[in-house]
Structure formats: structure tokens, C-alpha cells
């Protein structure tokens, strides 16, 4: 009888950890590190195959706080003529003709209380892949870095960047 009770308790004990793990899994899936996008833009073709530099489309990456998503006019400067019959380009052209901006789903975001500027990091020679991973090999972009404070501080330590709180928490 005692053994039977112990076996039930043990099952509950392991079951609790299974539930905890399931909770972690649900939390991970709700983080949605790779959300669906209105247009399946392949970085593999544009970055790896064509060799376009990041700032060809993300115009303000070396000029301001935000890298910015390119305006439709940038896409259309090429896609007025290239691959115009592809379904995703037809969708793109539709947005352009309607004058409707594309509501891209954000993938990389630091909290509001963090002051982060792309310009400063690009000027310091930090490669985009340091924070964004190998985007050029991703058919669908996903977030591969934690972008938590420890990650930022380790990098600031390595490159001798300022580490006082006010640098990032203005």
C-alpha cells in the first residue's frame, strides 16, 4: 500500500515537471519568434544570392536610431520590372498601387526603457549578424538572439563601450 502511494506521489512529482515544461513550451510558442509576414520576403535571394548590402533597403541603419523597413518605392524601383508575375510581387504591386503601407510584423524589439540606436553600433563596426544572426541564410526571418541585458553588457565589455546605466536607460 505504502509503495502504491509513493508511486502515485512520484507520478504527480514528475507530472508537475512535465506541466512546467509544457508551460515553458507554450511560453516559447507565444513569444512567436518568427511571425508570419504579409509578404514572404526572402532575404536569402536579396542578401546572399544578389549580395545587396543591408543598407540598400534599410536606408537609415547607419543614419539614425531605427534601421527602418524600406518604403515600397525602394522595392518597386527594382520590382517594377523584375519578377513581376510572381505571386508575392503581385501582392507587393497591389500594396504600392493602392498606396497602402505593408503592416510588417515586428521581430526584433528592445523594451521601451532601453535607448538603442543602430547608427552608433554600425559606426562602431558591429556586424548586423551580431544581433540579428545570419539573416542572409533565413528564408523566413526569426529572432535568434535573446536581446537581454546580459547580451548587451557582454558586448559592451568586449568592445570597451560605456557600461554605466545611463548609456542605455536614459
Amino acid at each position, binding site marked *: 500500500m505504502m509503495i502504491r502511494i509513493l508511486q502515485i506521489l512520484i507520478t504527480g512529482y514528475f507530472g508537475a*515537471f*512535465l506541466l512546467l*515544461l509544457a508551460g*515553458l513550451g507554450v511560453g516559447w510558442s507565444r513569444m512567436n519568434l518568427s511571425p508570419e509576414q504579409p509578404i514572404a520576403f526572402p532575404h536569402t535571394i536579396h542578401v546572399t544570392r*544578389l549580395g545587396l548590402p543591408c543598407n540598400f533597403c534599410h536606408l537609415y541603419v547607419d543614419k539614425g536610431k531605427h534601421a527602418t523597413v524600406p518604403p515600397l518605392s525602394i522595392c518597386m*524601383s527594382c520590382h517594377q520590372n523584375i519578377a513581376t508575375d510572381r505571386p508575392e510581387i503581385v501582392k507587393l504591386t497591389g500594396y504600392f498601387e493602392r498606396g497602402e503601407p505593408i503592416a510588417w510584423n515586428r521581430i526584433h524589439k528592445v523594451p521601451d526603457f532601453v535607448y538603442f540606436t543602430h547608427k552608433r553600433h554600425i559606426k562602431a563596426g558591429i556586424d548586423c549578424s*551580431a544581433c540579428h544572426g545570419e539573416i542572409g541564410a533565413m528564408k523566413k526571418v526569426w529572432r*535568434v*538572439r535573446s536581446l537581454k541585458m546580459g547580451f548587451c553588457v557582454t558586448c559592451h565589455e*568586449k568592445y570597451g563601450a560605456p557600461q554605466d546605466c545611463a548609456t542605455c536607460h536614459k
Partner: protein
Amino acid sequence: MTDFPESLFHLPSPAYLHLIRYILLGATLTFFAYAGLVLGGSVLSVSTSLGDRNGKDSFVRPLSRHFMEASSLSLLPILILALLPLITVGLIATSLFHFSLNVGSNLWPGVLILAVSGSLLLLLYKAGDPSIHSPGTVRLLLGGGGTGLFFLAYLLVIVQTGSYMNTELWQFSDRPVTLFLTWNNCARIGLYLLLSLAAAGARLLQIMYGKNGINARQGNAMKNTAKGITLATLLLLPFLIVADIYTLPTAALNGMVYLTGAFLLLLPWAAVIVLLESFRNDRSGSGTVIFILVILTFPVAVTLDHLGREQATAEKMILLQEKSETEKTAPPPGAETPVKKKQDLFAEGENVFDKVCSACHRFDQKLVGPPYNLVVPRYRGKVDELKAFIRNPVKLDPAYPAMPKLGLKEEEIEAVAVFLLEKTRDVQ
């Protein structure tokens, strides 16, 4: 730690890249399971001996010997199941991660030295057992030293393989502390060490069930000791399994990792249930079932690591594969480039134009870029200038967007320059 000489390794060809990643998995599966059993048995044997320095205790002395028997340590298995996989893992990992993907801080040469010397000392410790009644200081030193060295090798394998899935730290690989001292590595060290002790306990239990002619009271006491060790370690495992998955780097997470984690929890759960059942119904088969369930936990834990590593390095492997393909098609260094005929260059240039340039350019029409008939004639007699522009474009006309770097090979640049100049030869 010294590094392997780089000249020994070449970038793996795309065909073998996939294969060697699975050889890497197979070798780590074998190493972790067998070396874990050796480590668990040795730790328990040496620590038991410490409690009986005179070697007089009629319970502790055989218990220590049985723990060493449970470690399954002998010359041939340690060579085939631990050291050979370790060499395989070391060579593949060095070639793939250190020279091809530039992870830095290569611990494999040190691991191998520690594992070989640890194994030798442990073999001497085990061999000395039947002939010496008292454990003696020398034997304890052999056992302690061997266990320490082997433990260190096992620990370094855990942290080194862990570093391969922590891609966000690779950029800090010049600082080994940052690369290796992570919460995930701490959790994995705990997980594998507990598993090692559980495996040794379960193996001892299996041995005790099979022993005949042993004093029944002593046999029961040993069985209970083995059950106690196995039960205690298995009950602690869930904390470390959840901690391992919770601390995995973002890049290493996917649905399969969580599923494998769940399976990793089920095996020790089943082992504990069978173990408790054995207190009520002491059947000789229980020992084998418990041991199989515990030893199977190793491959599942290693598979979890493998899935995380595959997920975290997926993009890097794609880039490596492309790099490898490019290198394969490139002529060997020092080889003379054959002088091509003009018509061959023209045909090759036309091919490059069709595949790359025609996306933005026409000869007589403005597209994304200017019409060639307008801009190429400026380069007549200045083929090197045209090649330099194609190689490294600069924005010349504010009316057009900047031309991107195309990443063409040198022979492609030459061919397309010849093609463009030839095609615009008659333009006024």
C-alpha cells in the same frame, strides 16, 4: 589548451557536411553513455573507499569493488566506446566548428589528454583491487587522480559541446569564460553528472540481482544502497532537465526540443516507478529494466543537445555549405588560369548578363539602372576601369539608385566586361 594544426583540416564538402554532423551525433551518444557510466562507478567506488582507509570493513570494501565493476571499465571498451568516439568528435568538431565556423577556444586536445591519462589511472586502480586487501594510499591516489582527470575531461566535453549551440556567444570566443560559463552549461553539467551516478547505481543493482553465492544480508544491503543512490539521483533529475531547457539560448529552441525534453522526463519517471515496485516485488529482472531505462536517458539527453545545436547553427551551416560549394568550383591555388578566347568570354559574359545584370539593365532602355548604350561606351579602351566599377560599384548618377555589390567572381567580371564592351561597340 593547444590547438590542432589548421593544415590538417579542410572545409568539409557539401556532400559530407550532412554526414559528419550525424557521425558527430553518433560519437557523442556513445561517449556520453559509456564515459558517464565509468565516471559514475569510479566516483562512487573512490568515495566509498575513502570511508574505509584500512580496508577492513567487510561491507565497504566489496561495495567499492562492486561499484568499480558497475563502472564497466576495461581496456577494450574504454578504447572503443570512449576514447575512439572522443577522437572522432574532437576531429569533426575542430574541423566543423573551430576552423570552418570560427567558434574559438578549442578544448578537444586537452580533453583527449585528460581522458587518456584518467582512463589509465582508473585501469590501474581497478586492476589493483583484488590483490591488495587494504585500499592503501597509493591505490586511493590512483583512483582519486584517475577519477579527477576523467571527471575534468567529461566536464570539458559537456561545456565544449554546449558552446556550439550558444551561437550568440561565438563573437566573444576570445574570452573563454564568457563562452563556457553559462547557466545552460551549469545545468547540463549537473544533468550529466546525476545521470552518471544514476547509471552506476542502476548497473550495481543489476549486478547484485545477478550475483549468486553472496551473503544474503550483505547482498540486500548492497542492493538497497544501489537503489538509494539511483532513486535519489533520478528524483533530482527533473530539476536539471527543466533548468537545461529553460536556460537554452533562444537560437536553440524549437518544438522538437520541448518534445525531447518531455521524453527525457518520462524515462527517469518510469525507472523510479519500476524501482519502487522492486521494493514490493523483488524480481531479478527489475535491475536490468531500471538500468536500461537509465542508460537510455543518455541518448535522449544527447539528442536534445543535438537538436538545439542543429537549430542554432542551421543558418551558419547553409552559409558554410555555399562557401564550400564555391571553394569546390574555384581552381586550386597556384593553378594557371587558361587564356580564354574572346568568343568564349563573350558567351560567358552574356550568361552573366542574363542571370545578374538583366534584372536592372537593358541596352537601350532605362530600367532600374541606366541603359548600357548610354554608359558603357565611356569605358572603351578602359576595360580595367569597367571591371573595377563592376567589382566595387559607386553611385555616379543621382538619378539612379546605387548599384549593389554583386559578388561576382573575377572571371565573371572579366567576361561580362568584355561582353558589354563588345555589345556596345557600334553605339555612337
